[in-house]
């Protein structure tokens, strides 16, 4: 074990890499002004297609989290439009059960066991514990935590808590997985391990991932596409397609190809930061 994925068949099987895949998120000219007057996003447009692994990269405070929350349907845009063309839209105008969210902190309920935490999304839909057991255990197994189903969050290490959070996000089998700097608080070794696990998950299930990060190296390792954002006001600066080899492993991390990718991304990020300062 140790891989995040064993036999999950989330969403649909990965579509063969055709250039025109179905649109999953269509963000059009979105602006967000907070009640205190902060202009967090201004005229941000972003199209996300099924099966993409997108990183939102940018300096801290540039509106990455705000953008991700709007994509999740949490907090409305002040102007512009957001649509989820491939999802069933519920009465509140939000995609129903198609979005999984992983926060920077594990965000687990400390009074529930690991099982209870992963069960939550199903419980909120009225699926009782007994009915949900197989699904929950399957997801816990896939993150290597089946033995910890009855443990409480405080008994787990930071990396394990994050795995629980990922299992919870996947238990509803969402089409879209949103991750907001999920591994920023973890040590380097754990982070690399979880990066590999998320990558494997993505490759095997064809889920669409939007991954917020401020790390050039993380984004260059994971993504098929990197959206570099600039600050004040937050908007898309450049949109980079990243050619990635089929297999990414330890050797890839030290390859010249990876280094060149990092260089390209780092240059784009530098330009984004400079454009915000000038």
């Amino acid at each position, binding site marked *: 074990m140790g891989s995040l994925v064993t036999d999950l068949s989330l969403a649909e099987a990965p579509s063969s890499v055709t250039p025109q895949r179905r649109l999953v998120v269509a963000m059009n000219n979105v602006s967000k002004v907070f009640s205190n007057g902060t202009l967090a996003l201004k005229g941000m447009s972003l199209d996300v297609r099924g099966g993409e692994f997108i990183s939102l990269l940018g300096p801290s405070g540039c509106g990455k989290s705000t953008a991700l929350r709007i994509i999740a349907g*949490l907090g409305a845009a002040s102007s512009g439009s957001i649509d989820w063309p491939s999802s069933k839209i519920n009465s509140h105008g939000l995609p129903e059960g198609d979005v999984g969210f992983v926060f920077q902190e594990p*965000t687990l*309920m400390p*009074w529930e066991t690991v099982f209870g935490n992963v069960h939550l999304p199903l419980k909120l839909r009225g699926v009782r514990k007994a009915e949900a057991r197989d699904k929950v255990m399957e997801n816990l197994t896939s993150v290597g935590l089946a*033995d*910890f189903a009855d443990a409480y969050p405080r008994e787990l*290490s930071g990396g394990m808590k994050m795995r629980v959070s990922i299992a919870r996000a996947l238990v509803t089998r969402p089409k879209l997985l949103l991750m907001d700097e999920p591994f920023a608080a973890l040590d380097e070794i754990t982070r690399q391990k979880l990066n590999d696990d998320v990558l494997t998950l993505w490759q095997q299930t064809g889920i669409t991932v939007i991954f917020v990060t401020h790390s050039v190296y993380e984004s260059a390792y994971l993504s098929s596409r990197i959206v570099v954002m600039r600050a004040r006001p937050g908007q898309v600066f450049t949109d980079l397609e990243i050619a990635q080899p089929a297999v990414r492993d330890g050797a890839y991390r030290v390859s010249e190809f990876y280094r060149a990718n990092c260089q390209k991304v780092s240059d784009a990020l530098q330009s984004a930061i400079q454009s915000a300062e000038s």
Partner: protein
Amino acid sequence: MTDLKASAEKGTDSAVAVLLPRMSSNEKVMQVVVPLVALALGIAAWQWIVTANGIPKYILPGPGDAAVALFTDSSTLWPALWVTLRITVMALAIALVGGVTLAIIIVQSKWLELALSPFTVILQVTPIIAIAPLILIYAPDTQSALMICAFLVAFFPILSNMVQGLKSVDHNLLNLFELYGANGWQTLLYLKIPASMPYFMAGLRIAGGLSLIAAVVAEFAAGSAGQGSGLAFRLLESQYRLNLPRMFAALIMLCGTGIAIYGLTSFVSWLVLHRWHESAIRREN
């Protein structure tokens, strides 16, 4: 003694052993023995002072005299304890239900909270003993007057702690519930109420102690006599008659009641929180 739960996982982070701290049995015994020995020494010192100085019973009875009075006066003291206890427990129970319900209603709307705030502040800052005479006038009988006093005192720690608890829910968890389309009831039941339990328990422990204090103080104010009187009246009565052993016996009863209430509320708090909350977990470095 430790409980070793090692993961079979090869993952770098999950291969950690989780140690569940347990107290060593020696330490556990000492935790009980030390306070008991200290208490026994205190009682012995009290007895010694009384005998060594030949202090008469009507000035300072020894612990032995108090213990004897506990039995000889049991026909007056135990019914009185029962009256005080009933007032305390009922006031606490009503305060629990009322405080929690009102807290849940208050946090639904900021305007409601603002509108109610002057009343809660007035009732909270006014010393309850000062309104006791007023309550005595309006209440149908002394018993209910005492209950209202004890209720008013116990109500606010529960209300304010519960409001605080319901409001300090992790924002990301609220977002998560919103993301999964949870309705108001689900959010209340599965998130807000469990999250506020540590605050509620703190309020419960405070309120438990306060309701006993209020039941006694209010009875002092009422000064009611007769069949249905509680321990406070028996204290006053013993004071007039200079029956000091009985006074001490009544005090011991009140003290025991206070300890029992504290123990019970602490136990309930431990039962609810010990699995997950930091306050109930022994710190170990």
